[in-house]
């Protein structure tokens, strides 16, 4: 079965080709099912491989299949192949499994949309690229997938391109991600310089031989890779694109901007766990950024009224948790949370989609309320998702989040505090969204109220499956009892080298079971606290929220406007890049000058004043430039 690993990405690609090139006259149902079944087929293959992998001894669960040699020339050898090991296996299952469910859901959700075929073609292309990303056996192929998922992401964010905000959001995602990709590319080149190869199986085992523990090179590589990860996984400072990405259709938000693509950064960092283990500075950076993002995004989640934006900020926050886990050396916990998060966040987004479906596209929670009776299934599954993300026993999120908090405490209590505070907030804003949407008084327009209806089975069945997974998904990683943490044991071989490095010199610290139990109780307590607070504010005492706004007026405004982060970013980076080159290369109207002057400052202005005369269109100036070049070249050669 492992031989067939190449089939996994091939199926969605075939789906893409069929729908993209020939699907013009197919009926919707055919297009949709081609899309869903192609991913489903991949899931079946992945499942088969998974079972086979389980049957193998733990130490041998890492199989590389070279499909063909892409580049073989001189000292350059880039074989294209797939690496099947527990880590990639988890990712493959999550991507195909959740992906398949979301595809099925989309058949119902996108029914009647104008670009139905385009949507499924892009979605399949996305799955293909994502599978390439996670199954690749070398950095280069991973980069292929990395760019590919990015492309699909931009295209799908801008899916409703008639809407200016959607097109802008697509562009924004693109621009921000490019910043991250610089890091990835340069990091990749440094790896190539150091190891002469990009293949995981050549690079990681040789890490300790070619790099020095805590050395400059390994720190540089890991930090650069992490820059890439912050872009793709929406961490501080490159997170601004993700909330805007909610302009895309909801299934896209669920699949790409919650469950799979944005976790690519976490996957990449975990994949390079050996490198990170060797670079303590980078580890700390990852943990700090992750923790800070978890908290920062959670505070912004509290104030949003757009249900999808709440979920978007919660995604950023949860991704922060995952990075914090990696940063404190608990890579397996990060991946564990990645998986459970994929379940419950996909669930939440899809149920939000279901709400939208019922509400004729309304997203503002202030215009909802008391929907629990009208769309009971959606309401129930939303409960499941909320309980899971809040970390209430025994839902999936509890196990993974608790584990991260535990390791954070072991490493440094400060991280635990960050995580715990964020957890309170998470619980609060999620229950807030739950109550605002489904309970309290109805604030729905009369117009809309008439049409409120439960979604068709095509949508609710995937929801129920995901709800079940959110409930039981955590039981693969039960702590305390020896051997019950199946998930951790499964992943252990992948992270063993990193663990060995991290524990080198330290004794594996033993923690009492009591402490673990206490911590668990605390984290559940935290979650319940947030829950109760939300309940008090939005159900028991609805006017409290308004009072709170009054009381913390200025703070609330600040937070509500997302700390004006977007504006600051635009001013600092995006505009200055574009305007800088405009200044250099174009006469521009008076209006733009002001904008540039603000952004770039007097030094560049001086240079710009000199350089703007360059491309004058006059032959004599061009000749002058040539002559100047000649003089410089000759001068250099003569004086040297």
């Amino acid at each position, binding site marked *: 079965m492992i031989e067939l690993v190449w089939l996994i990405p091939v199926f969605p690609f075939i789906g893409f080709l069929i729908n993209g090139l020939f699907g013009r006259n197919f009926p919707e149902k055919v297009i949709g099912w081609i899309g869903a079944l192609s991913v489903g087929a991949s899931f079946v293959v992945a499942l088969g491989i998974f079972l086979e992998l389980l049957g193998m001894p733990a130490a041998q669960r890492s199989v590389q299949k070279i499909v063909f040699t892409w580049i073989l020339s001189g000292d350059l050898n880039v074989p294209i192949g797939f690496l099947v090991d527990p880590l990639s296996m988890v990712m493959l299952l999550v991507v195909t499994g959740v992906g398949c469910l979301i595809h099925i859901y989309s058949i119902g959700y996108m029914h009647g949309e104008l670009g139905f075929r385009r949507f499924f073609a892009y979605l399949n292309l996305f799955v293909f690229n994502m599978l390439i990303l996670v199954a690749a056996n070398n950095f280069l192929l991973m980069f292929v997938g990395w*760019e590919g998922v990015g492309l699909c992401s931009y295209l799908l964010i801008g899916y409703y391109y008639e809407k200016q905000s959607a*097109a802008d959001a697509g562009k924004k995602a693109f621009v921000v991600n490019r910043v991250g990709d610089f890091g990835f590319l340069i990091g990749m080149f440094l790896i190539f310089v150091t190891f002469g190869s990009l293949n995981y199986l050549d690079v990681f085992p040789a890490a300790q031989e070619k790099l020095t523990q805590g050395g400059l090179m390994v720190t540089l590589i890991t930090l650069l890779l992490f820059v890439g990860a912050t872009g793709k996984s929406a961490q501080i400072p490159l997170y601004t694109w993700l909330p805007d990405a909610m302009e895309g259709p909801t299934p896209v938000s669920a699949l790409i901007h919650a469950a799979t693509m944005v976790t690519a950064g976490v996957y990449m960092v975990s994949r390079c766990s050996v490198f990170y283990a060797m670079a303590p500075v980078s580890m700390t950076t990852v943990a700090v950024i992750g923790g800070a993002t978890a908290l920062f995004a959670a505070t912004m989640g509290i104030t949003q009224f757009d249900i999808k934006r709440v979920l978007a900020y919660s995604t950023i926050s949860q991704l922060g948790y995952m990075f914090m886990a990696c940063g404190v050396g608990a890579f397996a916990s990060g991946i564990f949370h990645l998986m459970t998060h994929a379940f419950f966040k996909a669930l939440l987004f899809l149920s939000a989609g279901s709400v939208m479906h019922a509400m004729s596209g309304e997203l503002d929670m202030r215009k909802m309320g008391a929907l629990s009776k009208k769309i009971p299934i959606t309401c129930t599954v939303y409960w499941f998702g909320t309980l899971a993300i809040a970390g209430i026993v025994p839902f999936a999120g509890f196990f993974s989040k608790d584990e991260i908090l535990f390791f954070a405490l072991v490493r440094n209590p400060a991280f635990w505090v960050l995580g715990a505070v964020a957890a309170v907030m998470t619980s609060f804003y999620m229950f807030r969204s739950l109550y605002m949407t489904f309970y309290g008084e109805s604030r729905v327009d009369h117009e809309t109220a008439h049409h409120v209806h439960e979604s068709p089975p095509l949508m609710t069945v995937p929801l129920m499956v995901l709800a079940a997974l959110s409930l039981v998904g955590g039981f693969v990683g039960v702590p305390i009892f020896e051997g019950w943490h199946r998930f951790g044991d499964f992943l252990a071989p992948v992270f063993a080298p990193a663990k060995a490095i991290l524990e080198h010199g330290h004794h594996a610290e033993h923690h009492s079971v009591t402490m673990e139990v206490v911590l668990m109780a605390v984290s559940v307590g935290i979650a319940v606290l947030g829950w109760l607070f939300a309940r008090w504010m939005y159900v028991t005492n609805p006017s409290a929220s308004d009072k709170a706004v009054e009381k913390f007026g200025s703070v609330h405004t600040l937070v509500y406007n997302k700390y004006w982060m977007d504006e600051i970013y635009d001013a600092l980076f995006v505009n200055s890049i574009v305007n800088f080159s405009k200044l250099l290369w174009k006469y521009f109207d008076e209006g733009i000058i002001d904008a540039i002057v603000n952004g770039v400052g007097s030094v560049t202005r001086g240079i710009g004043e000199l350089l703007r005369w360059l491309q004058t269109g006059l*032959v004599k100036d061009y000749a002058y430039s040539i002559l100047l070049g000649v003089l410089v070249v000759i001068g250099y*050669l003569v004086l040297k």
Partner: protein
Amino acid sequence: MIPIPEVNLGGILPALVLCLAGLVVMMLGLFIRRGAVATAAVVSIAGVLIAAAANTPLRMMDKQAFAGLINLDAYTWFFNLLILISAGLTVLTSVRYLTDDGLDMYEYFVLLLFASAGMMFMVSANHLLIVFVGLETLSIAIYVLVGILPSSKKSKEAALKYLLLGAFSSAVFLYGAALLYGSAGSLGFPELAKYFKAGQISRMAYVGMGMVLVGFAFKVAAVPFHMWTPDVYEGAPAPLTGFMSVGVKAAAFAAFVRVFFQSMLPAQMNWIEIIWLLAALTMVLGNLAAIVQDNIKRMLAYSSIAHAGYLLIGMVAGKEAGPAGMLYYLLAYTFTNLGAFGVVALVGRKGEANVMIDDYRGLAKTNPFLALAMSIFLFSLAGIPPTAGFVGKFTIFSAAINAGYIWLVVIGVLTSAASVFYYFRVVMKMYMEVPETQPAELQFSPAMLLALGIALVGVLYIGVFPTNYLNLAALSVKPLF
């Protein structure tokens, strides 16, 4: 009786075939009343194919001909092939263009063939005189081609600018050649190599070398000798712009590399830093300036400047890997850019009325295949895998890293990441925007479709299966060392 040197017409047969085809087209055009353009195109394509056939034996050769003036080796073979590919594709993309606008300009093909023949002499030269003659044959033909659009002011202006600056840079090149001649006593590459190897290099020779370098840098459009490029590319007919950015650039690079590696390698320490600087400036400026362009031809012009910068990295990297990377890169670039300019010519419609980037809005809706093809060409230009452009950049960058030029590669990676902005802008326009007015239907011709198809297959095929082509490139640079 003067001993007559060996005359190896077989060796220069590809160029001769092209010349002959040119003359035939010239005469045919005079005597055919109607459909001169179509006939000319057919004859040109036939000439290109025959020349390609005549070119094959060169691959196995490694010798000089005509008293050591001409090199017949794998390097010549490779570039001859590249020139023929670009000439052939350009003929295909031009046909519609020339009939569309009611031009009956079969001379276009004559000049194209002559220019290609000139390039072939240039790449096979073993003497600076041949480089010069080839260079000028090609340049003069291109000057006329650039200005061939009778009613376009821009076309005339472009021709004028190119001619004046081209002649200016030729003069600089020649002066350099004269100084080298004075130092080395001969301009044959072996003699020059001997002179540089001897180690007694005079100041005058250095100055000469610098000026020759400038002459080449002008032709490949390296900063600061690039300023003609945007104007000329904007004004010239779109298919020809493609040819200039690919064929002319390849020929210029071929001669550049041949001259500097075959005859001036011992002085490498002196020229390598200059080229380092040129490469860095070219990449930065080309990419920065491209970001703010609104005209797609101008944007692609700056992009082609930027690509010259990447290619120069290959020269800096040196050894065998650097030039080999350049050869592969040029091959990839040939398919990519000719495809892109083919699309530009097609979308430009009659009289190049639609050459702004905004004119690509909504193309994905009206012509999904064309939009997909253009996207792939642009991805390849941006160096996004799995296209040929990516492999090209990757090989050149890794050659440079192996040679220790890490900072240059960092600049390269950063600028090429920045370049994605402007390439993607076009993709975004095609896929994510709607045109304000419904544009006229596109007029596909079979020739254009064939050309785009070949270019597309080329980009993808040598991108996905690059190994053979990389090895071919490595094999082709062997004769230089």
